[in-house]
């Protein structure tokens, strides 16, 4: 889906074909992406997201016998380490940027959710690698591909050799489609009521775009949204207390894995921030805002449309990244041309 030309119509592309879909109710379930923070060398092949490596291993990338460093923040790190270890990878280090005390507090708050806590412990048990806290990669090096990564804690700095660095600093909700449709966004999240309805009529939203809460919560929200969209509000209401109960987990996640401000100093002037257009940190920090930087440097104007560098820029510079316009994803010119004709027709008819 790349456009929402008018109420009740979405434009999508499948293969070479442009689809025009008419809806009575629309449920957005766009999920989240990982937050990537630039550091010297992070564009080398062999460096990918934490969830990124997991996804690629599931997609057939052989990791057996490979040396893997898992870094970043959030409960995903342990899950990824356990998953790739199960596929034969040698996990050499797990680096969590949050301090140990945050993790202990987080575990304490998870006592109310023993299933999640047990899962975390199982994952940790499955991996023999040392886990470091207040730790992150500061530099990666290699000739054409990753060979070694330098890690730091407050007390020391050391270098490990590895084939993969799986590094993700938790999640960023995918709110682009909701923004395109005009749904109200609050604190970076799609605002919904208890029935998962957004501020736009007939448009609902479920899962991570309404708050990062993991798969169980997303499933509950999906059930509420589905039932509410079908008009079964009473049925949907039965799931609402279960969702409310999980809001504590959302809050605990947000508080435990808050990013260390030191991470803002990871990039050097020569570090690429925008990978699509190869715009470096030194060129960006001269500007006062996202729009200015975008116009002057092409930052965020490549095919990912700022999905990677925009989120990084929000953290690095405190910029407000906004201005989603169709097409929300790159599409064929033919799809665009048809889309504009259709939207005109609809306007004329209305």
């Amino acid at each position: 889906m790349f456009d929402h030309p008018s109420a009740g119509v979405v434009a999508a592309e499948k293969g070479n074909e442009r689809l025009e879909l008419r809806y009575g109710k629309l449920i957005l379930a766009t999920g989240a992406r990982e937050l990537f923070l630039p550091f010297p060398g992070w564009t080398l092949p062999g460096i990918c997201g934490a969830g990124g490596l997991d996804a690629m291993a599931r997609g057939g990338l052989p990791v057996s016998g490979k040396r893997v460093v898992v870094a970043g923040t959030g409960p995903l790190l342990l899950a990824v380490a356990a998953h790739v270890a199960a596929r034969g990878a040698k996990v050499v280090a797990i680096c969590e940027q949050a301090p140990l005390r945050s993790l202990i507090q987080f575990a304490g708050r998870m006592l109310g959710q023993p299933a999640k806590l047990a899962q975390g412990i199982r994952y940790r048990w499955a991996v023999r690698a040392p886990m470091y806290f207040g730790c992150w990669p500061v530099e990666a090096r290699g000739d054409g591909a990753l060979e070694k990564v330098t890690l730091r804690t407050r007390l020391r700095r050391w270098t490990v050799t590895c084939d993969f660095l799986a590094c993700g600093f938790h999640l960023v909700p995918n709110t682009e489609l909701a923004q395109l449709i005009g749904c109200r966004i609050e604190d970076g999240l799609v605002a919904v009521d208890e029935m998962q309805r957004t501020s736009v009529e007939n448009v609902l939203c479920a899962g991570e775009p309404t708050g990062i809460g993991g798969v169980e919560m997303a499933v509950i929200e999906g059930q509420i949204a589905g039932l509410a969209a079908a008009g079964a509000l009473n049925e949907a209401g039965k799931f609402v207390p279960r969702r409310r109960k999980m809001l504590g987990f959302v809050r605990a996640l947000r508080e435990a894995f808050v990013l260390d401000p030191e991470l803002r100093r990871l990039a050097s002037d020569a570090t690429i921030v925008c990978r699509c257009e190869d715009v470096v940190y030194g060129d960006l920090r001269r500007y006062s805002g996202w729009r200015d930087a975008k116009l002057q440097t092409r930052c965020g104007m490549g095919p990912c449309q700022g999905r990677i560098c925009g989120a990084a820029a929000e953290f690095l510079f405190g910029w407000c990244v906004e201005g989603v316009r169709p097409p929300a994803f790159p599409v064929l010119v033919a799809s665009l041309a048809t889309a504009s004709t259709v939207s005109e027709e609809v306007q004329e008819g209305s």
Partner: protein
Amino acid sequence: MREEMRPVLLTVNGRSVEVAEGTTVAAAVLISGAPTRRSVSGEARAPLCGMGICFECRVAIDGRPHQRSCQIVCAAGMDVRTL
């Protein structure tokens, strides 16, 4: 009875690559040893997000450019070209 994993044969930059059924094109490209693309300043790049967001994995498949290879499963006889 478990079904045998059938290998899929495709080409990456003209070289034959054999992968297990269900393997993504991105994984096949990495197995072949090639980066997926060169950046605008000439750096070798490989997939970052693995979920169709970052566009680092884009390659040409059967002549159609800019395909997100991490979201496409290999098919027999596919002609994959890295950029």
